[in-house]
């Protein structure tokens, strides 16, 4: 009984735990291209998209979105379809 309760709690926590959509710097992708992709994929304004693009360029990475796994995976798929270096990672709680 105790084991069952623990298992259920763990599953619930894992399912609900947020994930980050991270984009990494790449010396080849054009800044204008990356900005365009962020606008298309996330519906960001030019200003928001540019801010994230510059964060990627200067800091090496930017967290574009945080939330449930299924949607995060969808965003990663979209970003890879534009050939950006994007990864999914568990958000720190």
């Amino acid at each position, binding site marked *: 009984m105790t084991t069952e309760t623990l298992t259920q709690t763990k599953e619930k926590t894992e399912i609900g735990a947020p994930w980050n959509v991270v984009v990494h710097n790449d010396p*080849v992708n054009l800044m204008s291209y990356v900005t365009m992709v962020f606008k298309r994929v996330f519906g960001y304004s030019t200003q928001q998209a540019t801010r994230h693009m510059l964060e990627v360029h200067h800091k090496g990475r930017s967290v574009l979105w945080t939330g449930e796994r299924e949607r995060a995976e969808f965003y990663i798929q979209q970003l890879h379809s*534009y050939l950006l270096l994007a990864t999914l990672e568990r958000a720190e709680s």
Partner: protein
Amino acid sequence: MEIERNEDGSFTLSEIEPTLTEILLSIPSAIEPEGDEKVLNRLYPSPVSSPAETEVLQEWNEYVAPELRKLFHDAAVIVKDDLDRLVDEPSQLTIPAANVDAWLNVLNQARLALAARYDVTEEDMERPIAPVLNDDREVALFQIHFYGFLQECLIKGIESHDF
């Protein structure tokens, strides 16, 4: 070479110099991975930061990776069909509006594949283009810059229209 965005959203490249025609015609070979692991790894990078995320990786490899391969292949077919017209008319090329996204994708595939194949660094990208292309690597760098110039023109054209 001149690039113009037309009323219907298509782009016309005119007065293309023979060297640039050759560089355009080499796009299909540039995106061919030819079993090069570095190229494959760049075109199809890992979707996770940690290799311990085996469940995500397994699902990705099963469902998403084949879709991406098909997407890239289909875009390449569209661009190759457009390029075939260059053979008959080497100094002019029209990119139909419906094909612009495929071109953006394939130009990026080509840039990334060449950069991976020749280990292009940030310093290489910032350095001025060599006046004389002495070896395959210099040619690849020129290709990367020229394809980037084309991407930039297409993006500007699309965005000025959207605006």
